[in-house]
């Protein structure tokens, strides 16, 4: 469908007309949501959860068969579009060139909306969180590939900001017709890379990335022939419409106010709110409920008494605790020899309630994660296992004689009694020590 008009004729062959109609229908069906869940979410936008709400809406794609989009949805939409393209007889008062123009406008703004929402949460590095303390104390091989991608982005917020900057600039350039091609020249390699990373790291979001790429390709193909003629063949190349308008455009004032509204929503409100989230240190992945004050850290389990059997530290006991990490929020994780049945990750859905924030324990083994609730007197912990594959839980009395010792005494769900003593380890993490002074300066001993 991509024949460009390097001369003034503007003629469309029948095949090109069908291709144009197909594309128009295809992208309208992909971009304008037909499912009630979208409209429900749309009318339930709250300022408090503005960022995740807009993010979920802007990254919406039709999913008629499952909770997430699959290529089956594309097939369905493609079939409907092909049928529609053949049934579509009259173009009405629009010429093909004008129809194509409106298609490109739709594409540009759909793409820009997605890029702006993705871009701001990378520019203010919220997209990938810093590794939790539990993650820092988990063996490298226990993370699944997809987790490795997020962790590696999380340790270098500067890189994430760079990626966000690229997305934001290309999105901004898409708002203007004349700079759209320049924008797409960057978007295609960028998102091509994201697609390949998705496959390489076994992620599931590739359908959405393919959608963004398909949008970009339409814009790219529009100018492709001209681009090659200019850059490869060094020929004198004419623009699409030399000396004449080419298509009916939208009224200037309407155009300006629509663009302004778009920019206000996605750049002003969304960008501003993202900044606000970043500035006050919140993140989109870890629970927000705070844990016990000043308990955060890594603790070695020096005493472990199960049903009045004191079990020494040994390499082979099935359940003896080795170490425990208390997070800043109300999670603690226990490393023992007990195998972990790793929980699967169902995809990013931002802004959910604490109990649904599953980033810290999914796609990773080696540790058992418990969220805890403290009772009124502040001396009993109620532990629930966060992993849906593990039904274990504890009720433990907690005593803290000083800031580096914790005694826990209570029972688990099977009725076994447990007493443990935890000693805080003053652990220095290489990843943090190096960041303070740089590799060349840190030298050696850690």
């Amino acid at each position, binding site marked *: 469908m991509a024949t460009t008009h390097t001369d003034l004729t503007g003629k469309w062959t029948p095949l090109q007309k069908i291709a144009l109609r197909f594309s128009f229908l295809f992208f309208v069906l992909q971009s304008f949501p037909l499912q009630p869940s979208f409209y429900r979410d749309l009318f339930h936008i709250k300022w408090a959860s503005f960022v995740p709400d807009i993010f979920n809406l802007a990254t919406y794609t039709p999913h008629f068969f499952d909770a997430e989009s699959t290529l089956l949805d594309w097939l369905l939409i493609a079939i409907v579009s092909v049928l529609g393209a053949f049934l579509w007889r009259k173009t009405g008062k629009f010429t093909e060139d004008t129809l194509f123009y409106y298609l490109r406008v739709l594409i540009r703004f759909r793409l820009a909306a997605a890029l702006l929402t993705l871009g701001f949460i990378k520019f203010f590095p919220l997209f990938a969180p810093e590794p939790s303390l539990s993650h820092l104390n988990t063996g490298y091989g226990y993370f699944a590939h997809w987790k490795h991608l997020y962790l590696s982005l999380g340790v270098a917020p500067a890189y994430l900001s760079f990626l966000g900057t690229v997305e934001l600039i290309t999105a901004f350039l898409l708002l203007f017709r004349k700079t759209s091609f*320049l924008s797409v020249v960057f978007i295609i390699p960028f998102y091509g890379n994201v697609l390949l990373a998705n496959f390489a790291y076994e992620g599931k979001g590739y359908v959405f990335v393919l959608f963004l790429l398909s949008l970009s390709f339409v814009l790219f193909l529009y100018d492709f022939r001209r681009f090659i003629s200019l850059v490869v063949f*060094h020929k004198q190349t004419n623009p699409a419409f030399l000396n004449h308008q080419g298509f009916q455009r939208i009224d200037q004032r309407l155009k300006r106010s629509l663009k302004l509204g778009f920019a206000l929503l996605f750049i002003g409100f969304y960008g501003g709110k993202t900044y606000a989230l970043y500035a006050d240190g919140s993140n989109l992945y870890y629970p927000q409920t705070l844990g016990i004050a000043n308990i955060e850290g890594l603790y070695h389990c020096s005493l472990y008494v199960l049903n009045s059997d004191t079990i020494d530290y040994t390499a082979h006991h099935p359940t003896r605790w080795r170490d425990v990490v208390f997070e800043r929020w109300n999670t603690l994780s226990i490393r023992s020899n007990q195998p972990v049945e790793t929980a699967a990750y169902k995809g990013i859905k931002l802004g959910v309630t604490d109990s649904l924030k599953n980033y810290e324990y999914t796609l990773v083994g080696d540790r058992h994660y418990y969220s805890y609730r403290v009772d009124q007197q502040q001396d009993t912990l109620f532990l629930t296992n966060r992993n849906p594959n593990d039904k274990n839980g504890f009720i433990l009395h907690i005593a803290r004689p000083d800031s580096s010792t914790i005694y826990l005494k209570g029972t688990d769900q099977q009725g076994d009694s447990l007493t443990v003593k935890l000693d805080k380890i003053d652990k220095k993490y290489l990843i943090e020590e190096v960041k303070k002074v*740089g590799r060349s*300066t840190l030298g050696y001993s*850690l």
Partner: protein
Amino acid sequence: MTAITQAHSATNSLYADISDPWKEYQKILFRISFIFFIALSIPNNPLWYQHVAQIDWTNLDYRDLYDICRFGSGINLLGNTFFGHPLLGWANWVNTLLIAILAGLIWTAIAKITKKERQEFNMLYYWLNVIVRYRAGLGIIGFGFTKLFPVQMPYPSLGVLDTDYGDLTSQKIFWLSFGIVPWYQIFAGVLEVGAGTLLLFRKTVGIGAALLVGALTAIVVVNLAYDGGVHIYSSYFVLLGLFLLIPYYKPFGQLFIYERPAQIQLSFPHFKGALKWLRAGLKFWILFIFLGVFFYLQMIDFLYDPYKQPSTAGVKELRGHYAVTEFRLNNKVIPLNPLDTVRWQSATFEKWSSFTFKVHKPVPLDLSNGGGDPKRDVNRTFEIAGVAGGQRAFHYYADTLEQALYLEDKYKPILDQRNVTAGAGGDGGVRNYGIDPENLLLGYSGLTLKEWIPANALERIGEEVDFVDPRARTTRRKREFAKSDELAKKELRKRFVVHYTLLNGGDRVVLEGTDEHLDSLYVVLDKVKKAYNISTSLLDAGRYH
């Protein structure tokens, strides 16, 4: 109308004859750029020339070609600082630029005084472009082949898989995040080699340079964000790429942004006769060597001697992760206590010739990139670079007849300088600060090199240089091994010797011997299966049968 007058007569612009005189500022800028980019495109280190002259073209190593492509450049007569500031490493460029500006202005002055000033520099601009194109193209191809055959970022060793995430540097994390996805690394390699190849052909320079600028800008940011160490060399390609795109900026903007007719203004000479054949011949040889032969050599490297990991296979029965069930030092049992600073906590035997164990004690660290070009297994330190957590790694020679292992510490306090010919802008490795040379010998109460392996064992073990497939026994490898005994004498390494016994069909290994402090050692290791979630590598480098 400007659209008509800007288009020159020939629409087939490969032979465009642009006779318009250049403007004054264009001529001055050109003179400065000419000096600046030539200075940045030729090697400035005499070691490089010496090195290239000594290459044995009959038995090539991938690193020979890589070293041709990777060299430091720029004028470093003023040293590598700008009035004392290293400017993160970019001081060399700033100095070169200042010298180029000075020289350019002098050139302008001389031309004006002698009244021999040219009106245009089209041909000279063409040759400058050729030099920069080939420098950038071959340079990035050299970089790219080690990704195309994924050896630049190796899949993590068992020792690394067992390391906690917080005990790694962010540089290591990034390198490993590529190592675990070899096919993605290959894609990156294809991109780099592809961009470099596109730069070697006139028609595709625009696309090649754009890809180069895009991909390498990302690499520069990665290196700055993760403290990777290669930000200068990566930004070098960004600079060259941006220069090569100069003829493209204005026409691109004119056509796509201002929607007016446009054309790239570049003139190319028309070679005739003998020159045409010479050009075709040179081009053919360059492509043959740097694409064809390089591809083959890198493949051999990937298959038999991946340059960042030891190439010798480890003892087959020993490979795996182990828990340390019993540990006796000088016949005294030390019970398992995760806070003990002497007792081993866990151990691994790699599929290659390395053994690691963890102790709860701060150990000296190698914080380099673990790269470079060492051929000896013991000097291939990728598995320890950037890794803490009390883990120590040892290279071993195995005498399978006597069931003895001769181990040497892979860590050494004074690291070898890597990429010697790369000079300024190359990652010369990280020196370990804070180590007092006099104190280095204080810890070494152990075995000397002579005492380490007895002669009859040496005979059974054989020569490490021949441990690889014959196709990988390159002259470069042989040369390094010929000097290795001399080098080993100067190295400060901890060494120890153990005998191993396999029990329970290989599930239990007992090690008995003396450690590096000449204390007697008795360790019982039990194999453990780790329920790792990380996907295993789909593409393994090296042969470890």
